């Protein structure tokens, strides 16, 4: 069965963004992009909550066309623009980003159904609120976290409070030159 893989850049104290949505603290480098891209290529579908979707939509449709585009911009644009993008939102009415499907309700049921359909993996980008809903129904199969060497103190938490304890299996870990550590977990 195809997997749902949750991919995130996160601060050491567990935030995916600063208090005002800042993501300028995220450490990036070639090898980190390459490894992330290798993972993303195992998928054919992107899953987003509305906030993450809108950030992505403001960048990726034109990213590869910019004269400033890096190889990584081009790689990801070439994957994400044609990929099926499913955004879970009650407020979003329509989107002009190609191949977007808006799902208004019952995110967990919908993802459960999608998992049973044939296809490659589904990559869940950031979207902590959606991730919490999916984790609640045990729908996330792998976690790919890039832990940044910074303590933010405040911000948007990766994990929301729940009453569910979840034990995972460490699948891999890797330290990058810039001080980021990738932690990769799967189901126990």
């Amino acid at each position: 069965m195809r997997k749902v893989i949750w991919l995130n850049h996160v601060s050491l104290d567990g935030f995916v963004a600063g208090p005002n949505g800042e993501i300028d603290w995220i450490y990036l480098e070639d090898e980190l992009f390459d490894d992330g891209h290798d993972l993303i290529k195992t998928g054919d579908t992107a899953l987003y909550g509305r906030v993450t979707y809108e950030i992505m939509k403001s960048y990726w449709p034109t990213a590869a066309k910019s004269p400033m585009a890096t190889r990584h911009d081009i790689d990801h644009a070439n994957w994400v623009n044609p990929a099926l993008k499913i955004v879970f939102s009650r407020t979003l009415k329509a989107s002009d980003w190609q191949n977007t499907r808006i799902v208004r309700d019952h995110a967990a049921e919908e993802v459960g159904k999608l998992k049973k359909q044939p296809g490659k993996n589904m990559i869940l980008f950031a979207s902590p609120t959606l991730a919490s809903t999916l984790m609640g129904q045990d729908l996330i199969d792998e976690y790919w976290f890039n832990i940044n060497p910074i303590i933010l103190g405040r911000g948007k938490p990766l994990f929301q409070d729940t009453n569910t304890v979840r034990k995972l299996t460490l699948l891999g870990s890797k330290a990058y030159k810039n001080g980021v550590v990738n932690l990769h977990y799967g189901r126990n």
Partner: protein
Amino acid sequence: MRKIVASEFVTLDGVAEEPGKWSFPYWNEEISKFKFDELFSSDALLLGRVTYQGFAKAWPSMIDEAGYGKRMNSFPKHVVSRTLEKLDWNNSHLIKGDIEKEVSKLKQQPGQDLLIFGSGQLVKALMQHDLIDEYRLLVYPIILGNGKRLFSDANKANLKLVETKTFGSGVVLLRYQPNRK
């Protein structure tokens, strides 16, 4: 100058509260050796009240062949608290006044590392004064869902990754130092 090392058990969701309840299933030889080496390259503990009170109940009766318990019990324990009056655990010393001044004094004394275990409030207070020289986090492959987060509302800090190590049971050591420019 001696280093202050905050050595902590955390879950993947950053909870450091009551590790006794969730860390034992992952304990193995490698983690044991890491903790042993750490204790033997230190010569004192620096603790907040809550952690101190838990330790003071548990440690005096802990005896092991390797001598970990003996060393814990004989170490000087520096306890930061405004409310504690009496310290029952052997070789305990109360720090009541100006934390920054008192802890800086300890750092300037000759000796090995000063170890902090647990003591989330104290860690954050020391971070405000940039008094922590190293963070050693053992990250456990478990999401608890709720509990006190080690760094909740901490001061912003840029760190330098010094070492990572993966233990067989899925625990990962992340070792950082402050990025002091």
